[in-house]
């Protein structure tokens, strides 16, 4: 079974690169890509998503905030989040939450 996932990044080129890597990974199924977290939130509300790759630093709604929103929702499907950041200025790691939303920060 493939893991359904989406990618969110405000930098177009970074998003393209992320999508390319996801498509190369056989067990991942890229369902959609978004340049801002608000559009992505609309998609997540409608469809089931297993995994979200996203940038921490984004305008309007940051990756961290989106993760927090998803954390508060009692979704039927367990959604996991991978946050990353392109610079090493602040590399944070958020770990297992009570509602079962383990998130991990990566540095690309």
């Amino acid at each position, binding site marked *: 079974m493939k893991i359904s996932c989406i990618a969110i990044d405000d930098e177009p*080129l970074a998003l393209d690169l992320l999508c390319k890597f996801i498509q190369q990974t056989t067990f991942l199924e890229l369902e959609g890509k978004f340049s801002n977290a608000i559009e992505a939130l609309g998609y997540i509300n409608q469809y089931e998503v297993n995994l979200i790759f996203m940038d921490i630093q984004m*305008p309007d709604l940051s990756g961290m905030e989106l993760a927090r929103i998803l954390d508060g929702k009692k979704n039927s499907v367990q959604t996991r989040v991978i946050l990353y950041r392109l610079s090493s200025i602040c590399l944070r790691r958020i770990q297992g939450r009570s509602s079962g939303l383990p998130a991990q920060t990566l540095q690309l």
Partner: protein
Amino acid sequence: MGELELPIQFWWKQIYLVGLLISIFYLNAWGIVPKFLLKGKNYSYLLVILLGAVLFYGLIVYFEQFIHYGQKMHELFNPEKPYLANKRWVPGDVFQMLLYVISIGLSTSVALVEKWQKDEALRGELERQRINTELSYLKAQINPHFFFNTLNNIYSLTTLDVSKAQEALLKLSRMMRYVLYENQKDTTLLSKEVKFIEDYLELMKMRLSQKVHLLVKLEEPKEDLVIAPMLFLPFLENCFKHGVSSQQESEISISLEVMGDTVFFETKNSIFPIQPDSPEAHENGIGLVNTQRRLNLLYPEKHRLKLGKDENSEQYEVHLTINLA
């Protein structure tokens, strides 16, 4: 009476008087004025001048007696009357004191004018230095975040599209050369500045989503026009700082035209609230206020800057005209 044979004493007296007046002139201009008047000791100065007058009169009387000037002149003009040693010729003394006053007056004026000119030159020099210091402080800087973002984009491009990555690297290196070397100078060629703006916009385009419509019209300028480096950059940075939204469509237009020696620069952008958490919001290279100050120092009376929100189109507009002649 016919021709009068003037006694030799008369000429000695004249030479002595001229010598005395010259000494008084320079003594006053170089010694007494700087020592008393320029230090604010006005009353002491007056006192010294009065003492000088007494001394001057004394020296003349003493010299006249020494060469028997009065007696000889008296014998020449009034040979029939007897000579009285104690009686002096009053109009002559008044005339000599007048000469003293004129000499002091002239030399004081000369000394003061010289001092004023020196002060003026010093003030001008100080002003120039102050402006230079301020200009180097105001020197435009590119937002360092631009470089980080561009490098990240190039990192992505190396996997996605190698030839584009190469192109972007070339542009970035050209920009860095400009920032590092041309920005150190006071002036640069306008054509180089335009090339710099082109590179900046090209690299900026890579970061923009499809929601942003960027209209650029840059005119290739004549070869010989010179301009202060990175004058336009703060306006460009401002456009992208305020004019880009992640959700709404937006439009940014940038144009640069050259007519003779005059440059017309114009930007228009939509206005969105700035993201308080975006790194570019905080470290602004150089603010608009600083740019205005820089323009005032570099091109006083030679530029016109109009900026503000257009009421009809809800856009922020900048119109900058500089005469580079």
